[in-house]
């Protein structure tokens, strides 16, 4: 039986603040915002790219169906 009661569980040496900023690690709050902005920018760009990819996939299907109807029917 190794289950410790909650009050005996080991705790971090210092109690963290309600919202610990990235500065608590190493990067600094400004870096946290910069990293966040970069993450969002790359994610939005990727998601916009998916709209183009959906069009590409549709175009492929349309081309195959057209070829099927015009030449292979």
């Amino acid at each position, binding site marked *: *039986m*190794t*289950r*410790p009661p*909650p009050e005996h*569980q*080991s*705790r*971090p*040496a*210092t109690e*963290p603040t*309600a*919202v*610990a*900023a*990235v500065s*608590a*690690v190493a990067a600094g*709050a400004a870096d*946290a*915002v910069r*990293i*966040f902005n970069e*993450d*969002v920018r*790359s*994610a*939005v760009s*990727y*998601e*916009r790219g*998916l*709209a183009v*990819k*959906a*069009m*590409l*996939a*549709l175009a*492929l*299907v349309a081309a*195959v*169906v057209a070829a*099927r109807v015009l030449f*292979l*029917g």
Partner: protein
Amino acid sequence: MTQVRLGFEWLLVALVLLAAVPMLVANVQFLLIGLHFRRLHYAQCRPYFPRTAILIPAWNEAAVVGASIDRLLRLDFPRESLRIFVVDDASTDATPEVIQAKAAQYPGSIVHLRRDKGGEGKAATLNHGLAVILADDWMQAILIMDADVIYVPSALRRMTQHLADPGVGSVTAYIKEGSQPANWLARFIGYEYITAQAAARRSQVVLGVIACLAGGAQLHSRENIEALGGRIDTATLAEDTVTTFETQIAGRRAIFEPHATVWSEEPAGIASLWKQRLRWARGNVQVTRRYRHIWFRPQLGNALGSIRFGMMWFSILLLPMLMVMASGSLVTLYFIDYRLGGATFHMLWLAGAITYLFLTFFTLLIDPAAGRRTWKEAVLFPGTVNLIILMTTLLPGLASWLGHHMMLAAGFAVTPGWLRGIQLSLYIWLAACMGVAYLGKVCESRPLGRVLGPVLVYIGGYGPLLCAVTMAAYLREFQHAEMRWDKTEKTGKVAAPA
């Protein structure tokens, strides 16, 4: 009499074409992905690092849990805001020793909880940990995960940023198959996960509803987990889906963050996959029954009750039944109106071919890296025979010429009788492919099964194998079979690609 017969024939045609509805739904679902960029939640996000309890249920996870803890503590997240609670579900291997060694290595970051009586399922194990975590007010967010999964360093911070919006109750990540080396089955699962996670969840975001927060990557705000009663439902085999539904029914948003990547190890053999998927499929049947008052009731004001979400949910759930019904109807048509049967079959497969082309091509583009690893399995996902039928539908002239010459080369004369026999076989195959794929599972443990099992799945199809699992789930639920938590064996072969 003629009118009755005509009516019966058209009823059969309708039953066959009903099997095309899930294809139509899948096409619409994938088209919605193109609109995902308009429904992103980032405007409500900010850098946010709440005190996060990571809850890991563990039963005989000695091979994987140590590496998982190491990885978690290397996340791009303030170390003092992380605390890992491993609930050891009465493990009989070295799991307790591994956890204790890690607790000594990372003082203050690891809490080892042990249940003396295990085997009650994942939900009961999670509840043991939740009771401890909720006993004090340290935790602001809780990440529920599996012992084997590997989070890429940015994954958790990409998930927690959504909790900065108080309207969000939970967040899930993009789980990818990460076995190294990836055997044939891992590659099938890898492709399946692009469709089921990266693709389907994006379209669900567009619809404003998430079907399931993956059990290996569920982040909840404290408020959300408390609103759920501070515990995970134990009445079904799909505790993660119930949590997802309850979160949204309570009016909180569930978010899918596709750029938070999590790698997991999936079953290496067909029997193991079957057990895992049977548990999931039975869970889905149970969830369907449990929320019967919600389906197709948009007036309730919850997106779970929307017609579109209901169509998506039931398309997957009923697909095997529709395939059997279509096959039976085609066989009946064969005997009463051969020509009409042929035309209906052709229409069904034309819909299938268009769907196959669109979904496969688009899926490979959604996650090109995973697509490069799994493209062969993507092509063979419906099975070799079904692939031939699809190609024949798209290129009938070429297929007819090839078939004719191949039969002549093999010494068979192509007679109308032969052609009719092939036609009837193809009608039966629509349902029989599930049986052939199932035989792959049966054969796996027999002599030569390591070769024969995969061969049968490649012939019958991985998709039909999943349909066979759903069929088995109907039967188990109909028989009120015992709910068993068959844990998937993990060996620690998952690795995040460099």
